Structures are given as structure tokens and as C-alpha cells.
């Protein structure tokens, strides 16, 4: 396996939930396909956007890859340091060493940090869990990482409540990157931030991606953010990928009817470009089928 191989090869990944049925037996409920036969590749060092409305399966997709939830079926081949591992079928006890390579930045900077831990402990905890370094070495790494994300070393003795939303998100980023992972999922990582802060955090992510050679899966409902930070984008609807491609190509020349609906709803900050939104309801079931060229991934 050479280093040009895709970092991730996702093949027919699905996550189904049973709805409406009782846990005590009785009538079984319907099957909800939160993630329905999704296949795609992710190359090393790219930022891949996953966009869709609420309920489209974008978060389920990211979480199934990270094994934060167990997929119902399918494969997620993760290729790093010359070995390929199928994350989707790996037994739980073998997951821990893999987690060093895959980290997550969460949406809510207020809920995702333990209020009773200091910032230093929060950022250093992944090192402790994986038994890396001595106490002093860990401390040095925490300081280095805090400074790298634009915080100060004296911040490590403070608690999360003392920080603003943007600063907390920087703490979350420091925690995610301290293990030097190859792959990071950012799930709505800037959605809770004000516009000016959001722009600065996005710039930080761009810099860190280049510096650490990260591959980022950037999950967001915000199309303008996706366009700003991503190289390629997946458009999801009802658990399936509708369209996939280079971000500028998808935004300038969308091929799928659903992508056109999404793009038509972006409110542009320009009063001379009033939106004329299309609606999903006007699309036929045939129009909501994935583009035919996406099938090629399922085969190889």
C-alpha cells in the first residue's frame, strides 16, 4: 500500500434505526435509514465538506466512520502508515489505538468541555488516556498546542467558564489535535460562533490543516462555510449522497436538482441578488436519486 492510496475508502456504509417499535416486543416498527449505502473516498490532506439539511445523515455518516456509533453494514477502510484497517468491523477493544489517529471537534463549545476540569487537563487528557509521555512532557505539549491555537500558556490553570465561545472552540481544537491525528471530523465546529469569530476560527483550521497535514471532514449545514474551507463536498439528503465533487464546481455548476435547491436558498449578503428559492417538495422521487456517476465507488 503506497502513500497515494486514499486515507479513507467508505463502501456501502449504512446505519439503520428501528422506529416506533416497543422494546418489550410487540409490533416491530419501520426501518429508518439514517445512512443509506454511502460510498466515497477521502484523500490525504483534503478537507471534505459534508452538507445537508437536518436529518440528512451528515452527522450519522461522520460518527459511523469514527465508530462513535456502530454502523449497521458496510466498510470504512482507513489507510495510514502503510496499514489498512476496516473501522466499521473492528472489534471494540481494538479501536482504542485507532482513536489516536481520528479525533473530533464538536459543535457546542459550551457543552463539549467539562466545566470541572482545567483547560490544561482538558487539552492534556488525550495524552494521559493513551499513556503518552511523562507528566512534564505532556505539560510541554499542552503549552505548545495552546499557543498554536492562539491561547496562552497561563490559560491552562483556568476553567472553561472563563472563556468566550471562540476561545472555547480553540480549546476544543487543541484537544483534538494534541495526539497529532491523521483525520479530524469537525461537526458544525463554527456554527455556534459569531461571524467575525467564525471567520477567525476557520482561518485557524486552514492553517493547522496545512501545518499538520490533516485530513478534515467538515460537517456543516452552512453552505458559505463549506465553500470557504473545503476542497470537495458531499451533498446529502435522507441518508444518501446526492452529489459529490470539487467545491467550486458544485457551487458554480450544480448537477443535482437537490443541490440546486440548497444553493438557491443561500441568502447572499447583497440586496441586488434576491433569492428565488426552489423547494424540495417540487422534486420528483426520480430527481432525488443520487447522480449516476457516484455508483463507481461501490464497485471498486
Amino acid at each position, binding site marked *: 500500500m503506497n502513500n497515494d492510496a486514499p486515507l479513507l475508502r467508505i463502501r456501502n456504509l449504512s446505519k439503520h434505526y428501528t422506529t416506533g417499535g416497543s422494546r418489550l416486543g410487540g409490533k416491530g416498527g419501520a426501518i429508518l435509514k439514517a445512512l443509506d449505502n454511502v460510498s466515497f473516498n477521502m484523500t490525504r490532506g483534503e478537507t471534505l465538506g459534508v452538507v445537508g*439539511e*437536518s436529518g440528512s445523515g451528515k452527522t450519522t455518516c461522520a460518527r459511523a466512520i469514527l465508530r462513535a456509533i456502530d454502523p449497521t453494514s458496510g466498510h470504512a477502510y482507513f489507510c495510514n502508515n502503510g496499514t489498512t484497517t476496516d473501522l466499521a468491523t473492528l472489534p471494540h477493544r481494538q479501536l482504542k489505538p485507532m482513536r489516536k489517529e481520528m479525533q473530533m471537534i464538536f459543535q457546542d463549545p459550551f457543552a463539549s468541555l467539562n466545566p470541572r476540569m482545567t483547560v490544561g487537563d482538558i487539552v492534556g487528557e488525550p495524552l494521559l488516556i493513551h499513556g503518552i509521555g511523562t507528566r512534564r512532557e505532556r505539560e510541554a505539549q499542552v503549552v505548545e498546542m495552546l499557543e498554536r491555537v492562539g491561547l496562552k500558556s497561563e490559560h491552562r490553570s483556568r476553567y472553561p467558564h472563563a472563556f468566550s*465561545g471562540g476561545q472555547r472552540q480553540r480549546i476544543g481544537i487543541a484537544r483534538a489535535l494534541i495526539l497529532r491525528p491523521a483525520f479530524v471530523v469537525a461537526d458544525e465546529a463554527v456554527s455556534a460562533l*459569531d*461571524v*467575525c*469569530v*467564525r*471567520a477567525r476560527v*476557520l482561518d485557524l483550521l486552514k492553517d493547522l490543516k496545512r501545518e499538520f497535514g490533516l485530513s478534515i471532514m467538515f460537517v456543516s*449545514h452552512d*453552505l*458559505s*462555510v463549506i*465553500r*470557504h474551507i473545503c476542497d470537495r463536498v458531499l451533498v446529502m439528503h435522507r441518508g444518501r449522497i446526492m452529489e459529490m465533487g470539487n467545491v467550486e464546481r458544485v457551487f458554480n455548476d450544480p448537477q443535482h436538482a437537490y443541490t440546486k*435547491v*440548497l444553493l*438557491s*436558498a*443561500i*441568502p*447572499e*449578503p*447583497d*440586496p*441586488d*441578488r*434576491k*433569492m428565488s*428559492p426552489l*423547494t*424540495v417538495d417540487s422534486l420528483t422521487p426520480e430527481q432525488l436519486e443520487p447522480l449516476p456517476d457516484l455508483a463507481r465507488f461501490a464497485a471498486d
Partner: protein
Amino acid sequence: MSDSSADHVLSVRDLRVDFTTLHGLTHAVRGVSFDLPRGKTLALVGESGSGKSVTSYSILRLIQKPGRIVGGQILFRPKNHKTIDIVQLSEKGDDLYKVRGGKISMIFQEPMTALSPVHTIGDQVTEAVLLHRNVDRKESVEIAADMMARVGITDVRRRLKQYPFEFSGGMRQRVVIAMALVCRPEILIADEPTTALDVTVQAQILRLITELREQMNTSVLFITHDLGVVAQVADEVAVMRQGLIVERAIARDLFKSPLHPYTRELLSAASLGREREHPPVEELVSLPRGGWQFNEPETGDGTSQMHEVAPGRRLLMWKRGGL
């Protein structure tokens, strides 16, 4: 921006709101003045903590302890009625109840928390009608059903008997809009009404608010942090920061040639990588002379003033010491 006050359904003058906190007094709104033209949409835009929501809550006198309106006027000019200063209304008086929810109503950000989970949609929409209009129960249901249909809810009779959990987020926000408009208010305050919604649903709700505003000749005060939304709905814009309005302008002027450095920063942050270059502000308008600057002096002894730098364009500027 005509200054004849009759054209303005609402004029806020030097509004000040303080909050008492553990760390002392916080001046959330520090002297805000603006006018809402009749039948138009004014967007109040700013980041969290800028005081935009506190300003809008003050208009309905919804500021609760430890907050307090400490100064200024909120002049409401209803049709066929003399001007009311909302700041002076008695907390428990009938006049305030007539204004709040009747003549001026509000749509909140979270459609789930704005609705009671234990009452039917029908009960909640008719409640507003029964409170503010002199009709009986049966008529109130007719009025509610008619309004529900106008906000795009189908199968109204069945829907009136349902509870909020049976509605999607977008449908709930339509119900909240129906509740707000059912008494035909003269002013609708929309506080981030689409922030919790998907873009496609947001687009529908924005269109609905604009259409209903035209049909019902309501004036809209639109609170948002999203400049994209502002560009789509607003006739005029007031940009807020740190409890003050820093720039007021006709929407097109503001987007085509933002003047205040903060407005420019907001616009470039909202345009993410597709920002335009703006010429120096001195080339666009003539700024007042004599020590006026954009930044508040750090010495804390500054005086601020809105300067009309072009027709309909006002900029907040600071000077050290008194005037």
C-alpha cells in the same frame, strides 16, 4: 430617511438599559436611537452581546430583573391614536397589555420554546385573539383558522387540534408567525426568527414574512446576526456593537459602500473569502472635523454622537472629553 415623525411608527430615543451583575453594573444598551418607518423593515444587526435583543425586548417592556430601562424614550405612534411613550407605561396598566401582543407583537428565535407543549395549536392561536379582539370563542376560531391558512398551513381544521410536537420546526415557526399576526399588529418584532431553521426552510419563512408585511401593511423590526438575511429582507439597517448603533443606512447603501470599520469587518466576515476591497471612508463621505474618531477612547471619558455624513446615512463617532 425622512425626519417627519408621522412616517415613523416607532422612534427610539437615547434608550439605555442596565443589568446589575455580580461584577457591578453592565450597560447593555448605552443610548440607542432609531426610527422604524411605517410599512418598512428595519434590520437591527450585530453579534451576540451587542444589545440588539435587549433593545427589542425593551420595546415590549420584557426586560426583567436584574435588567432595567434607565433612560430614553420609545415613542410608538399607532394609527388613529396619540403617541405613546412605552417607557412611561405602567407595568400593570391596561395600556401596556394592549400594546404588548396586540399592537406590537414578537416572533422569537426558538419555535419550540415559544409554544406551550401542553396546549393545542388552536388554543394557543385563539388565545391571542380572545385577549386582544372583542370576539367570541367561535369567531376567534374562524380568525385563527384564516390566519393559519395565510401562513401556509394546510388542513387547518385538523392542525388546530394538534400539539406542537406534531409540527416540524418550519411549521412551528409558521404557527408562531400566525400567533404574532393574528391581532393585526402595527409592528412585528422578529428576533432571529430563522436562526434555528435549515436554509431551505429559512428561505420560505423569510419570503412569508415579507409577503405578509406587504399584505397587512405591518412594520417589521428584524433582529439578526446574519447579513445575508439582512440583505434579503431589510429596507433599512442599523448595525449594533457594544450597546450602541454604529451605522444606520438604507440597506443597499450599507452593502454597496459600508462606511464604519466595524460594518466592513462584519461584511467581510459574512462574505467568507469573497470580500471586496472598500475605498477609504474619507473618499466616500466627508467626516466631521475636530478630533472625531471611530474608536471609543480607552480613557473612558469619551463622548459619542451620530453624525449624518450623507442623506440617510449616520455614523457613530467618538471624541475625547465633553462636546
